[in-house]
């Protein structure tokens, strides 16, 4: 019988062990970010790594996101695989130019001569009562950019294997870590194969397909359990890869259920939900019994923490969306735009 190496780890520990394995397996792997050395990062995700691998491989960076990413570009030219930690989602914007104008395009610009195997780790999303710029979901900006892969794990197992796959990928990868799940524990088999291509069906169902990712996967699973008590069968899909999206898996589910609900924390307008709704409609219009429904953050700035429980999709809002897809009485039944 094969010996299994499964351990119970928090999501943060699963990422830490993935970084450790990547540093062990490939001496071209470097870590670069603010406070990732002695402190181990503000979320302690890189705890102990500088002590074990040295400050030449686990580097505290000056406080400059463009500098971190641009330096990683130069290191990539030289054959290094740099894993950059962007301290918080809302801090990534100073590095936006280097990401979209350089990291994303250099392989294309050089007709394949120069690879950019850069992984950008970004703690993202809300729900931790933080101040402004610490709870954002900027993934759509990057999903819109040609040349980038964008992924987000929802559990410790995926966090480990997907990060190792992201680091091993010769494409640049934006790795969005659901920060409010950092402390959630789960089994992790460090030898499980990595996959940053495919969505996962989290709970099988027959009435409604509920597509989400990151921290909301747990909420969706709870919503599915609650709906099951009312006799509604929800199939929850964890996208895992946000660009490209595994539309084959989503389409297969929607052909079965005929109803699609998409949920993300990010603002709705021109968000991933819009792309999923459009693409699924294009692919299997004839199988849809209802227009796709979106349950998302509002098109406002991320609010002060006392308001975030209203901004963030929760179990009840997801089930309200499910009711809309099922044409059951819901919050909009008697709503009109001119009321």
């Amino acid at each position, binding site marked *: 019988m094969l010996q299994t190496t499964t351990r119970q780890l928090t999501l943060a520990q699963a990422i830490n062990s993935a970084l450790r394995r990547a540093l062990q397996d490939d001496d071209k792997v470097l870590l670069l970010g603010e406070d990732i050395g002695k402190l181990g990062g503000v979320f302690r995700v890189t705890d102990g790594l500088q002590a074990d691998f040295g400050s030449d491989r686990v580097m505290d960076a000056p406080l400059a996101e463009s500098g971190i990413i641009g330096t*990683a570009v*130069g*290191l990539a030219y030289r054959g290094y695989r740099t894993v950059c930690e962007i301290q918080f989602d809302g801090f990534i914007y100073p590095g936006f130019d280097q990401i979209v104008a350089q990291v994303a395009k250099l392989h*294309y*610009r050089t007709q394949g001569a120069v690879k950019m195997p850069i992984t950008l780790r970004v703690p993202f999303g809300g729900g931790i009562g933080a101040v402004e710029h610490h709870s954002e979901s900027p993934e759509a900006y990057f999903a819109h950019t040609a040349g980038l892969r964008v992924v987000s794990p929802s559990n410790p197992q995926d966090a480990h294997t997907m990060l190792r796959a992201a680091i091993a990928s010769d494409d640049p990868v934006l790795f969005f870590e659901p920060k409010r799940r950092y402390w959630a524990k789960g089994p992790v088999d460090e030898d499980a194969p990595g996959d940053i291509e495919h969505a996962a069906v989290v709970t099988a169902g027959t009435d409604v397909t509920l597509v989400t990712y990151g921290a909301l996967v747990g909420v969706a699973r709870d919503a599915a359990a609650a709906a099951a008590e009312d006799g509604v069968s929800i199939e929850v899909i964890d996208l895992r890869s946000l660009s490209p999206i595994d539309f084959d898996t989503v389409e297969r589910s929607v052909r079965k259920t005929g109803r699609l609900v998409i949920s993300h924390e990010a603002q709705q307008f021109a968000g991933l939900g819009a792309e999923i709704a459009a693409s699924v409609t294009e692919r299997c219009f004839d199988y849809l019994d209802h227009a796709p429904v979106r349950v998302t953050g509002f098109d406002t700035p991320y609010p002060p923490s006392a308001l975030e429980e209203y901004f963030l999709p929760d179990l009840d809002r997801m089930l309200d969306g499910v009711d809309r897809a099922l044409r059951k009485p819901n919050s909009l039944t008697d709503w009109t735009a001119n009321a």
Partner: protein
Amino acid sequence: MPTTVSKDFRLTESHIRQEDVVQLVTPAGARVANPTFDPWVDDVGADQLASFYEDMVLVRRIDTEATALQRQGELGLWPPLLGQEAAQIGSARALRSDDFAFTSYREHAVAWCRGVALPDLLRMWRGTAASGWNPYDVNVAAPAIIIGAQTLHATGYALGCRKDGVDTVAIAYFGDGATSEGDVNEAMVFAASFQAPVVFFCENNQWAISEPVGVQARNHIADRAPGFGIPSLRVDGNDVLAVHAATRVALERARSGGGPTFIEAVTYRMGPHTTSDDPTRYRDPDELATWQGRDPIARIGLLLEGLDVDVEALDRAVNAKADETARALRAGCVALAAPEPLSVFDNVFTGPHSWLDRQRSQYAAYLAQFDEEA
């Protein structure tokens, strides 16, 4: 209590400090003795100077021919280097073959010195490719159009060289306008913190399109670097010998573990920003005339005459070579064909990609209709 600092407090390495712009050859072609820099170019004799002269004439001809090709509709755009030949040749000829240059879009002479093939100089400007050459063939990165972005890439590359335990150096070329960009300042922070073996080579050509350098900096640009902990020097960018000496100093510092150096090469963009620009709208013709009197090529011709070189014969040979180079450039340019339509999808990613592969397949089906009609 206020601290008194000496005028030169920022200059940590006096051996590269000069009171003013370093100049070894005057515009009149006179060799100026300089005990600090002379030892760095004492091996540069008449033959080597003649070879710099030849390179400068050739790249000026390449530049003229490319401008003509743009006017004739063969190129979409061309950013002339006219006036900056010495800054680029003098520095690039100081590089070792394994050193790596990260340039802006005007460093045609750097590319030339590194052995970039003639048509490859034009590929991007003709629109047949997003960049002209494989960076690893010539150790010159794909030119950066985003101003200043490449300075960080050079810093990262240099950091990689240090990690690899080699004495290879990265050099970043950028203009006076770029020094206002955050990336250039961040690059200096990173380079200083990590003591990266990188040379920051600023071609201060006095103009950022229509903005004079005074819009970017009230003091000398070189004076900024010491604030980052990076020694700097100003050099006459139209003096190929002075540029060569200064670059050798900076390269040696980097190679021997001394970290980054900042060079401000004071030069002049004699032409427009690009073939789309009209400098008569913003530039005083007298200023251009002044700088034409400081021409980088003319002064080396005069210097060579003083060294008893037969410059007439040299000119005949160099001009014949320039004519041949221009012919080859033109022939190479018009032979650059547009790539086939589906190649628009190539190299976005390093391997399969479910979304893009599907889009490509659908566009192929669209294109196939026309094959069937034909």
